Structures are given as C-alpha cells and as structure tokens.
C-alpha cells in the first residue's frame, strides 16, 4: 500500500515537472498558433545556466533557479525579436523546419562548449534523500518540485483568466487585427508571452537536471514528451496540458513500476487511447484551426 502512495507521489512530481517544461509550448502552440519544436532548447539553456552558476561560481541552488528563468526568458525574447516573429505568418512546415534547425544548432553549441556528458547540479543537503510520512517514502527533491510547480500553475491560471494582460493575450490570439484596432500592442503581447514561456521552460530545465538528466541532447530527447503533453491536453487552455502532464507522469512511473517490461511504452499507449477517444485532446476546441 505504501509503495502505491510513493509511486503516486513520484508520478505527480514527474507530471508537474513535465507541465512546467511543456506549458510554454502549450502557450506558443495553442494560443499563438506557432509550432516551436525548439522549446526544449530553452529548457536546456536554463538548466545549463543553473548548473554553471551553482557548480562553478558557488551560487546557492535556490538563487540560481530564478536566474535560470530570467536567462531563458532573455534568450527567448532576443530570438523572438530577431527570428521568430518573421515566421508567425508563415506555414506550419516553415515553422517546423526553422525550429528543428534551431534545435540542432543548440545541441551542437552546447556539446562544443559544455561537453557531451550528462551534468548534475550540486544540490543543498536539505534536498537529498527521502523522509517517511506514515510509512510513505517522500523524496525531498520531488516534494520541492511539487510545491514550486503547484504554485506556478495556480499563478499562471490566475494571470490568464483574471488579469488585464490575460484578456489582452486571449484577444490578441483570437483576432490579432481587431485586437490591434482596439489599441492592444499585439507584437508586444506575443513577445512577452513567448519570453515567459521560455522562462518557464528554463526553470523546468534547471529542475529536471536531477530527474530527467541534462545533456546536450535534452531538446531532442524530450521533444516527444512536450508534444505529447500538448496534444493530449489540447491546446486551448492550460488546464488541459496540466491534467495531461499529471496523467502522463503518473502513468509513466506506475508503468515502470508495475510492468517494467512494458514501462517505456505505457506513456505512448495512454496517448494513443486518448487521441482515438478525443482527437483534439482532452480539452481541445471542437473546431480545429
């Protein structure tokens, strides 16, 4: 019984992590209708920034996390202003080709600068090991992930649904022309949203170094996972990807524990079943654009 709960907890933590990594993609793909396969590259950038700060310059881990967010966001905004914005109006194929090219460049660049082996971020001792709650083993690091990601999700939902910026963003997405006619600075809103999504990915990258492993191939290895989260969740809101992340996280961990022979396939099986049942994802819009 206790191991069931430990697995459930691990699954939730894994799912939350997937969500923080992928929700930026849900925003660019779902809200801005831009296929950005290079999303993982921003996550990797954040992870490496955090690793360099903590391991080489001795920053405390918790101080380096916000910086991982900021640096990825800055890189994101720079690329958005110089490269991405030219592709907003292009076809999806152009966007895919462009962003996959960016992935390969980032892989090669990181491999050249940082080397190809997996790197670890030195964690404070308080985050290592497990503790028991009524016999259920709770991993400290995973607990931290659940807390951080849970807070972020709540904040994100509030911003999108309740604030003026949220409504501007939704307006800009639904009808950019009408929105700019109403005085909304659409390019600015998009740039800001894009940067924020990249920042979240960067934070996710820093958090995932411990669990998913951080090496130069990160953007390629986990691209599929991000895309699964967005397709299964549907891309019209962030609740969909959130639930999809949890489902996939729990499914993946439980699959590896209970049917280790089938472990890696469980996540794909879940995806196929859901997409047959609801081709637009759990919370997809009924009309595809």
């Amino acid at each position: 019984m206790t191991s069931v709960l430990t697995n459930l907890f691990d699954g939730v933590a894994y799912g939350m992590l997937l969500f923080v990594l992928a929700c930026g993609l849900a925003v660019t793909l779902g809200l801005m209708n831009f296929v950005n396969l290079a999303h993982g590259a921003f996550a990797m950038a954040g992870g490496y920034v955090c690793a360099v700060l903590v391991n080489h310059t001795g920053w405390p881990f918790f101080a380096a996390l916000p910086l991982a967010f900021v640096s990825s966001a800055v890189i994101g905004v720079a690329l958005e202003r110089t490269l991405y914005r030219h592709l907003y109006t292009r076809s999806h194929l152009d966007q895919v080709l462009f962003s996959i090219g960016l992935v390969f460049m980032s892989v090669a660049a990181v491999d050249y600068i940082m080397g190809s082996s997996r790197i670890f971020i030195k964690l404070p001792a308080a985050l290592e090991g497990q503790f028991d709650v009524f016999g259920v083993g709770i991993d400290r690091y995973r607990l931290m992930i659940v807390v951080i990601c849970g807070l972020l999700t709540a904040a994100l939902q509030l911003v999108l649904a309740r604030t003026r910026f949220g409504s501007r963003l939704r307006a800009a997405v639904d009808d950019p022309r009408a929105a700019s006619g109403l005085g909304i600075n659409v390019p600015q809103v998009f740039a800001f949203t894009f940067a924020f999504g990249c920042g979240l990915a960067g934070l996710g990258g820093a958090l995932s170094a411990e669990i998913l492993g951080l090496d130069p191939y990160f953007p390629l290895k986990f691209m599929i996972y991000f895309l699964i989260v967005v397709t299964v969740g549907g891309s019209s809101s962030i609740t969909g990807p959130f639930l999809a992340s949890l489902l996939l996280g729990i499914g993946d961990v439980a699959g590896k524990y209970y049917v280790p022979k089938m472990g890696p396939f469980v996540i794909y099986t879940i995806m196929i079943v859901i997409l047959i049942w609801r081709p637009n994802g759990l919370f997809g819009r009924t009309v595809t654009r």
Partner: protein
Amino acid sequence: MLTRRRDVLLAAGAAVALSLGPARAEDTVKIGLIVPMTGGQASTGKQIDNAVKLYMQQHGDTVAGKKIDVILKDDAAIPDNTKRIAQELIVNDKVNFIAGFGVTPAALAAAPLATQAKIPEVVMAAGTSIITEKSPYIARTSFTLAQSSTIIADWAVKNGIKKVATLTSDYAPGNDALNFFREHFTAGGGQIVEEVKVPLQNPDFAPFLQRMKDAKPDAMFVFVPAGQGGNFMKQYAERGLDKAGIKVIGPGDVMDDDLLNDMGDAALGTVTAHIYSAAHPSAMNKEFVAAYKKAYNNRPGFMAVGGYDGIHLIYEALKKTGGKTDGDALIEAMKGMKWESPRGPISIDPETRDIVQNVYIRKVEKVDGELYNVEFQTFEAVKDSGKTKK
C-alpha cells in the same frame, strides 16, 4: 549559379585527389580509430583516445620502420555511423586497422567490412561475447561480460547472498550479464526474486529502484554501461536502498573508475568483479595511472586500459610481421600474444581471438580520501565462457 556549381565540383575533385595522395605512402601504417566522442557514451571514446595518445607518447610513433598514423573518428555510438565511417576509412583512407568501438552494435556493424577488406578489427571497449565470432579478423582487448558476471555469481553464492534482484540495461551486453549471472547463481542455489530490464536511454531509475526496494533482496545485481554508474548510485542512495541493507553487486562497469570518486559514500562496500581497477597494486599500473593522471588530470578507467592494450597489440603485431600490413599475417601474429597490461597479465586466445585475463573481486574503499575499487581476490586467466558451443 552555374559557375558556382562548377567551382564546388572542382573543389570536391581536388579534395578527393588530396585524400588519395598520401594514402599510397608505403612507409606509414594507418589506424582508423572509431569511438564515440559525443553522445551518452562519450566518456568511453575520450578514455580510449587519451590512452592511445599516451601509449604513442611513451613508445614513439614508429614501429618496425613504419610511421603510425591514427585517424580518430566519432561515431557517437550509433552503428549506422560506425559502418559508414569504417567504409570511408577503408576505401578512401586505406587504413590498415580499424579499432575502437564503444558499444557492441558498433563493433558488429563494422565486422562484415573487416572480413571483406581483410584488415584486423581491434575491439577496445565493446563487451558482448559474440563479437569475435562475427569476423575472423576481430581481436579484442577489452573484456566480455561473461567473464565478470559468472565470477561475481559464484562469489555471491559462496558469501551467503541468497536472494538477488537484478537490474540490467536492455541491450546485448546487459542481457549477456544477466544470463550468465542467472545461470551461475541459480546453479549454486541462489534465488532471483526480481528481474528488471531498464531502457538503455533512460536516466530515471527511480521507479525501477522502488520496485527493487520493495522486493527486499539481499543484494541487487546491476549492469549499466560505463558512464551511467554515477547517476545510478546517486538515485540508489536517494531512494534509501543503502539504508535498507540492499548491497550492489555486479560486473565492474557500474563502479567505473572514471566516475567512482564522485559517487559519494553510498558506493562504499560495493563488491564487483572486474578486469581492472586503478588501484591494481602492480608497478606497471602505478606508472600507468601516474602518467595518465599527469596528462589528463583524471583517473584512467577500464575503457582507457582497453585502448592502451589495443594499441599495444597493434604495435606488437606489426613488430612480429616486420612492418608488413597484410591483414591475415597481422591477425595471425596477434593470436596467442601474451603481455603484461596495467590490469595484470593478459593474452589473446589463439582460437577465439578474444582476451584471456584475470578477473578480480573488489570492494569500494576509501584510500587517501578517495574512493577506489580495492582488489581482494583474483581469478586467474579467465577465458570468455560465452562463446557459442561447438
């Protein structure tokens, strides 16, 4: 546009002509060294490259009147790349040896090319038994998993370990390790309570480790390829398996010297069977470790030793043929060759062209504040028991 295309063609033609030019030189021997220098297995390639360079520094770059020219190529441990690179090296560069091969699939991909081109393939890393059977031109200076897995199984039986759970990477060497361990361990009366195969490309061991923990074995038998051991031990400690009294045993890959010192105290007391430890107490090894540390500021692991012995084998074979580069003569010269390696006395089995060597049982201990695999028992001249029964 047209002229530009012609320029490109001209340049390409010139490049081909250039690359063909020096290949005809009669007084050089070319070795194509194909190892993973990027990707997850990069540490293997870097160690081999380092060791080969070190050997050539120590022994000079001329043998039997020939200059040795090593051409280093990166295959990222992807067999398709290995095959393409091997073909280019053989056809364009006219190499006399191909060597390296970080993983089993890579060594197998090159085997038919070695047979066709009649040039020796020296396997310096990959460890599945069948490799040397795939071409009569293959000789190996690394190890086979059968060598260490059978020995650790026998040791476990004799030392009161009754229930074992296994965790092995799901590819050929992992399956070799598992099968040979299971065969010897159950024959000795041991019981395997849990068998888990983990994907080769899956760094998150947490759910698998949780399963191991709940199975409550006396020890867990672990094989992960060189390079993944650090991550494994970290998660092993984090899940509290060390506190639950579940010891790690296995072939020594998981306790690679390359990573051992960063694993922390959770690794202490781990018993593995393997062919090399940087703490091997011979004068030759002390010299080797000191020279390697001085040159690369890092400890050599078993992959480095495989590379060091591989280039030695090539040097000695050339000495024996008097510098002749006929593939059949070279492989004939390699058969039965005996020498002292940093790991101890080794030889090439004349029948299988595979390595015969001592296997040591070692325990992780702290020596001068650093973690080392300290050898405490030796099984001498172990042959590979994994060859197809004839």
